[in-house]
């Protein structure tokens, strides 16, 4: 991902559970795995906390504000509310790609 994803890009958070593969430090909340969202803004590049947490040399990763529709996350989610979460680009897939 050389160019940052522009605002409005529809993405899907990877349906992945690194927790099952050993000790990890993950900044992507469980309730977003596999969920569809929309990029709101690119926040810049940051060293990957998944590496820093284990004292490994970190990759630089793009970080985004991604917006999700609450009713797609929870049965009681209210349409019109907004769930806005910071997510690293390594967790995002282009929807439909």
């Amino acid at each position, binding site marked *: 991902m050389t160019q940052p994803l522009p605002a409005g890009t529809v993405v899907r958070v990877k349906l992945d*559970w690194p927790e099952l593969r050993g000790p990890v430090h993950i900044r992507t*909340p*469980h*309730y977003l795995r596999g969920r569809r969202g929309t990029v709101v803004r690119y926040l810049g590049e940051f060293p990957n906390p998944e590496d820093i947490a*284990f*004292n490994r040399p970190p990759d630089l990763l793009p970080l985004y504000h991604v917006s999700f*529709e609450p009713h*797609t996350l929870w049965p009681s989610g209210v349409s019109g509310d907004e769930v806005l979460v910071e997510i690293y680009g390594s967790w995002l897939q282009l929807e439909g790609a």
Partner: protein
Amino acid sequence: MTMHDDPAQPVLTTDVSVRAHHDMGGISKYICEPIDTKPHALDAFDREVDALRQLLSAKGLMTVDELRRGIEAIPEGTYHRLTYYQRWMRSITATLLRKGVIAEADLLAVLQPPA
């Protein structure tokens, strides 16, 4: 483990048994249970732990990310029993022992009650 891939079909996220115990955002129990959002007064222990963490960071001995990883590694039962800054202290201690910044014998000697 079952997961719905269709975002139009929400599932109760508590059904996901692989969620790490500290990853508590969005779980359904908080629909029923009030969340304590009041500010808590800091006691001397809390302030000392916070100061220690800042010093360790300034000296390049430990990052905030390592602190968080160490907190998340606390076993579930203990995690929920400890206060916020007690979790920090557990993580700091485990990290410094693992990195060899402090030795277990020295730590035990300090913790030994005076004879």
